[in-house]
């Protein structure tokens, strides 16, 4: 049944919308999720995978905060890999290959089990706004539904236009129509919108491929999980495959360049530099003879395959011809061609850190509408918008994560203070404190906060406290255990680590780079069922990299001082003549709420910052 007044309405049921709706409803807000098509809730519009470098950390953070992306990914995983395992602990990045249908199904099942969440299929084509405050939405069917807060997660649907070669048609995703009305209304109210573009590769029939000539990429031998809860453990996995383009493929693709809208300038939107179309790649890196293609299965049982690395908007016949010259693709049959999509986004500098728009109270944006790309980036914004929208209805202050607390904090702070000139994707190098923001300690960083705001479930808290206890007891044991030279020296020699001459604590042996903690524990027969692989790994990282962790913590605390100097919301920067003209403009536009945020705005110099310190520092 549909209530006449909701606390929160979420528009759009993708990664952002689902997390937003779930968070708001789980916090106790009466929530309505409106989607144009109930059949495609939780759709993976692009590749059938979650996580990866920096993104995997975000999924762990979402999970630690009480979101669902990690659970849904685990439940629909067909392959798990911990990327970057050869690098240090900051870089370990979980990634799953997912069953696209199972993923959507799992999302829908979880959403349906949330008592305070209602659903509705309709298109929202307008917002009800009174006195710069949102009070509901208007739908295509002519209904007006009231709410205290509205979260728009429109993805690529706002005035979406798809391009394949010279053909173009309105739509937000293959086979789905675009949404109109919202952009126009918000622009008339003074918000600034712009266009972005992104591309997607062809989907093909896996039965038409010759995998025997491709390189197999199997999952990890010991697959792990995203969620800190008891999600299912993978027992069997599906492999991906790798093949390459070649000179001939490139020549064939070039024949269609003049008809590629991504390329000939017909699409004006801002595109990403890191996920270029295949036509972009061969043009910009003309001396490269081959580009990698990942052949990713779309699920356990489906024959559909995703051709990752071959994103394109060339005419379909050019796509087919070129792909047929790729090794293993000689007889490829297409399900559907790759295409480019162009859509509206709103410059995210128009948002508060809560993701509420500055211009219209109660209106929140999350996901691609803010100029980001990626499921994980979208989901994490949805989660934060859902939390903050719900809190706003009870007049609770918003939650903003810090840059030393979560990648989600880095993401939102970057968007809000710097804006973006291309679809924003997370990279670990965007984080100043990468060693603090590890995938293994996401729960430690964020679950206490989730408990505080009332989002973490009982079972999550139970698991969290158990793990913390185990970490503590293991550390205690390692500190207490004294090791005799004869017990350990042969092991140390095997590991090329200097033998000991007198008794030492196990802890000090674990600091050695060559000594693997799990192996050391085996040698010393230190066992306990609570000391799981996860617990041992986290402990080992904390011990081995203590110096680096400490150094980053210090830096973070230093910079934090600036975050504690508040700038009043209505402050007139133009009134300070000693600020540079550029800083006055930028600060007035971005309206930072503290000095830390001000310091990250480009165009605000050290001198300007000094002036602000003096003005607000006392």
């Amino acid at each position, binding site marked *: 049944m549909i209530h006449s007044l909701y606390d929160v309405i979420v528009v759009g049921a993708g990664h952002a919308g689902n997390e937003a709706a779930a968070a708001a409803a789980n916090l106790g807000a009466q929530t309505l999720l409106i989607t144009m098509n109930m059949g495609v809730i939780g759709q993976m519009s692009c590749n059938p995978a979650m996580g990866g470098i920096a993104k995997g950390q975000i999924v762990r953070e979402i999970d630690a905060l009480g979101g669902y992306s990690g659970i849904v990914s685990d439940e629909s995983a067909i392959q798990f890999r911990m990327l970057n395992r050869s*690098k*240090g602990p900051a*870089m370990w990045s979980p990634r799953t290959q997912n069953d696209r249908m199972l993923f959507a199904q799992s999302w829908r099942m979880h959403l349906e089990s949330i008592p305070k969440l209602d659903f509705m299929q309709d298109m929202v084509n307008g917002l009800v706004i009174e006195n710069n405050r949102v009070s509901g939405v208007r739908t295509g069917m002519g209904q007006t539904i009231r709410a205290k807060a509205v979260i728009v997660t429109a993805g690529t649907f706002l005035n979406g236009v798809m391009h394949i070669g010279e053909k173009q048609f309105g739509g937000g995703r293959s086979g789905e129509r675009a949404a109109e009305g919202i952009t126009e209304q918000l622009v008339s109210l003074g918000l600034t919108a712009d266009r972005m573009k992104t591309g997607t590769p062809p989907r093909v029939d896996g039965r038409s491929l010759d995998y025997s000539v491709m390189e197999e990429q199997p999952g990890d031998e010991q697959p792990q999980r995203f969620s800190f809860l008891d999600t299912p453990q993978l027992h069997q996995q599906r492999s991906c495959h790798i093949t390459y383009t070649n000179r001939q493929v490139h020549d064939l693709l070039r024949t269609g360049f003049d008809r590629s809208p991504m390329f000939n300038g017909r699409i004006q939107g801002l595109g990403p530099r890191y*996920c270029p179309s295949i036509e972009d790649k061969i043009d910009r890196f003309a001396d490269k003879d081959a*580009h990698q293609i990942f052949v990713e299965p779309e699920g356990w049982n489906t024959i559909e395959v995703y051709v990752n690395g071959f994103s394109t908007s060339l005419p379909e016949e050019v796509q087919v011809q070129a792909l047929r010259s790729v090794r293993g693709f000689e007889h490829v049959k297409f399900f559907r061609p790759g295409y480019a999509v162009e859509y509206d986004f709103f410059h995210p500098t128009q948002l508060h850190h809560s993701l509420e728009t500055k211009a219209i109270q109660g209106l929140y944006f999350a996901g691609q509408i803010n100029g980001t790309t990626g499921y994980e980036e979208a989901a994490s914004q949805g989660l934060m918008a859902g939390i903050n929208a719900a809190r706003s209805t009870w007049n609770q202050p918003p939650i903003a994560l810090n840059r030393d607390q979560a990648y989600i904090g880095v993401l939102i702070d970057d968007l809000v203070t710097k804006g973006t000139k291309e679809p924003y994707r997370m990279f670990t190098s965007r984080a100043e404190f990468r060693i603090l923001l590890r995938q293994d300690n996401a729960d430690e960083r964020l679950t206490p906060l989730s408990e505080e705001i009332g989002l973490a479930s009982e079972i999550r808290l139970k698991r969290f406290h158990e793990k913390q206890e185990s970490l503590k007891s293991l550390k205690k044991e390692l500190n207490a255990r004294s090791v005799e030279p004869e017990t350990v020296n042969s092991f140390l020699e095997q590991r090329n680590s200097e033998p000991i001459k007198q008794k030492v604590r196990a802890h000090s042996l674990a600091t050695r*780079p060559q000594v693997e903690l799990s192996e050391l524990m085996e040698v010393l027969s230190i066992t306990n069922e609570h000391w799981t692989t996860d617990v041992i790994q986290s402990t080992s990282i904390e011990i081995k990299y203590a110096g680096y962790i400490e150094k980053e913590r210090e830096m973070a605390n230093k910079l934090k001082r600036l975050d504690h100097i508040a700038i009043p919301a209505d402050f007139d920067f133009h009134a300070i003549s*000693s600020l540079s003209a550029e800083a006055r403009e930028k600060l007035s536009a971005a309206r930072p709420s503290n*000095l830390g945020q001000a310091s990250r705005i480009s165009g605000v110099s050290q001198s300007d910052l000094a002036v602000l310190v*003096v*003005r607000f520092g006392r």
Partner: protein
Amino acid sequence: MVQALDGATICALSTAAGMGGIAVIRVSGPEALACVSRVFSRSLAGVESHRAVFGRLRDAEGAVLDECVATVFRGPGSYTGEDTVELGVHGSPFIQQEAVRSLMAAGCRHAGPGEFTARAFLNGRMDLTQAEAVGDLIAAEHAGAHRLALDQLRGGFAREIRALRAELIGFAGLLELELDFAEEDVEFADRERFLALVDQITSQTRHLADSFRAGNAIRNGLPVAILGAPNRGKSTLLNALLGDDRAIVSDIAGTTRDTVEDTCILSGIKFRFIDTAGLRETADAIEAEGIRRALSRAASAQIVLYLFDASTDSPTSAAATLASLDLPPSARVLTVWNKVDEAAFPLPDPSDDVLLLSARSGEGLDALRARLVALAGFDTSGSSVVVTNLRHAEALRAAAASLDAVRFGLTSGIPSDLVASDVRQALHHLGSITGEIDPEDILDHIFANFCIGK
């Protein structure tokens, strides 16, 4: 300046720089008394507020530098509201620089522009209505410091630091590439290449830090090259400036076959003048060598005086000559018209960069001297070239220390994400000279050079 909040003890010269009778170096912060005591012949621990004591100041290496007076002001009754010591030292630029360096070695940080005032304000020593005025002052000092930094960075430093920054970003990019884009089909640099790069960057950084360290301009004089075609009066000008017959002067073009150097002190600043062989096409091997040396000396000069003879050179031909010259881009070039009392053509209008004089009669020489002093940067009161130098040197040394940690990390098998954190530290230190470095700079570098994207 953000640093104003870091609780450090800061020091800086607080009187106008240059040669004066007495210079005051101010030290402020919780450790002010302790820091000064470390380099002073007497402990200040028991000294009451507003009392002065006499003693000897040691330099960073522990040798006696100067006899001076230390005045103690205990917080909150001091200018900044913190414990403060004011050291009155003798006013030579050399002593000022060495004293500040010594205090920094004893645990002080160099004060940022306007930082004493900012602290005074933050500690409640000033009224809120003065905040705006304080802001103006800080902005002005920043502008002054920035201009000074630029002046200081002439003579190739600016270029070298820019090159260093670019190399560090390139290195960070290579390192980050294999972290963020490990799954991409790109070639990663091997350890050997990383090590070679780090060594190269470290040695460049150290070289730069050391070149600042000596405070070359102060100790050896600010290099000024005198260039021009033969027989334009270069040696006469040098002699006029030096006041003796240091260079051989004759009417035969090409008399000065080698470079001649001498120093003199103008308004307390030491200049090192380099008289060079006249620039012309020549078949004489010795003279050709002299000309080669002239150009190479000019390359190290911070100021170039290019001489024309008003009695023979037309302004049009002079402009053509200047345009055809390959002068060091980092040096400030002043066009000097000599023999203006015998001018054969209408003279150009004098300006900051165009001076009219007669080396023989002495007309216009004072204007040239004043211009040289101004260019040396000592005319900006309140800020000091010496200290700007030191601050840069400190930043470079800190960057070099971070790079040492990078090398250690690379050779001892520390994972590259941790090594990258030391690279960031190095970039951060360098950023305090060149402006902050945004992570976006590194990503830009990666996207520009590698094909990224599945």
